[in-house]
């Protein structure tokens, strides 16, 4: 991976690079935001009280990451982070379609979070030395929190995979269903080649995706879990605009309070 020049400022980017940076920030922020809301749906009903607290805490962390990324986007493009987060119609969200599925069962939520967190870790690796210093700063903080997220999700993957017939069957079914959509976490962001050229991103997303999958392969093989589908990458649109009815329901939930009085001061 190359290292970007940390003195690069946004004024040095041409219009295309700037747009690509905005695309990247919005996609990452929406990924974290939507995952945070889906996983918060477990609050009060997780398999055990301790896990209830842990999973809600992880979900809160993602909302915090989203907040930092929306803030970066607002600094780049102008506008208000809350307005970006809550003020768009469902079709304007740019999260990966992995996050279009509902909470479903525990194995499904664990499988999705495992796939997302490991993909996101590969993405953060490629941004750690970003030439866009504000992003490198946020990414450094995110990576420290993600260390624990990864530990926790590896622990749960292992337990469901080796924890008897039913947990394993549910986990395998979830992974098979989610794999094609998981590939989208590292796709669907226009202009990633320009970001590589500008030193914002260390390598194109397709290469980040390859590194992520190569890193996961030994663990999946050891646990006898489904491998990703073969092929060059995900088929079909990765990041909307049509996110389906489940996301529309979630969107109605998380925008409900704001829509009731958009001008309210908190």
């Amino acid at each position, binding site marked *: 991976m190359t290292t970007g020049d940390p003195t690069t400022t946004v004024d040095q980017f041409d219009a295309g690079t700037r747009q690509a940076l905005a695309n990247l920030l919005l996609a990452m922020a929406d990924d974290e935001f939507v995952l945070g809301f889906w996983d918060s749906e477990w609050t009060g009903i997780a398999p055990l009280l*301790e896990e209830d607290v842990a999973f809600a805490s992880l979900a809160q962390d993602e909302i915090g990451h989203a907040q930092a990324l929306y803030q970066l986007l607002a600094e780049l493009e102008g506008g208000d982070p809350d307005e970006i987060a809550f003020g768009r119609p469902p079709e304007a969200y740019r999260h990966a379609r992995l996050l279009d599925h509902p909470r479903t069962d525990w194995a499904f939520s664990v499988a999705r979070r495992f796939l997302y967190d490991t993909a996101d870790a590969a993405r953060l690796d490629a941004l750690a030395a970003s030439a866009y210093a504000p992003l490198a700063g946020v990414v450094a903080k995110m990576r420290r929190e993600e260390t624990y997220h990864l530990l926790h999700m590896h622990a749960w993957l292992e337990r469901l995979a080796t924890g008897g017939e039913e947990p394993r069957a549910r986990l395998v079914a979830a992974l098979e269903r989610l794999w094609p959509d998981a590939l989208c976490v590292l796709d669907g962001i226009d202009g990633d080649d320009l970001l590589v050229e500008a030193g914002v991103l260390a390598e194109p997303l397709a290469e980040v995706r390859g590194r992520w999958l190569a890193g996961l392969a030994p663990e999946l093989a050891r646990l006898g879990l489904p491998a990703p589908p073969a092929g060059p990458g995900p088929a079909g649109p990765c990041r909307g605009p049509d996110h389906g009815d489940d996301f529309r329901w979630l969107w109605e939930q998380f925008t409900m309070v704001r829509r009731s009085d958009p001008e309210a001061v908190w």
Partner: protein
Amino acid sequence: MGGQPMQVYEVFRREREGGPMQHAGNLLAPDMELACHYAREFYGRRQESVRLWIVPRAAIRDLDDPDLLQPPFDRSFKKPVGYSTEIKAKLATARSRAGQEGESR
């Protein structure tokens, strides 16, 4: 969880460098790895700790025998606090006597 029984873990925390490890509370977990994760969530996620100890309650030797802990005879002389309380009382008496004598002269 593979039918693993849940166990109680006791958690101790250090609030700042150089401080003592103090009992924080306890939690249920199926194994030590998840117990560590949950301890972090319960007693560390708000940056309120710099170190945690996570101990299976089963590893703790419980001692509550009154013959060992509450002997029947007066053992107040073994208590440093008892000694110092007595000294303070004597000192107070002596001082008040000295004060009264001072006034009487």
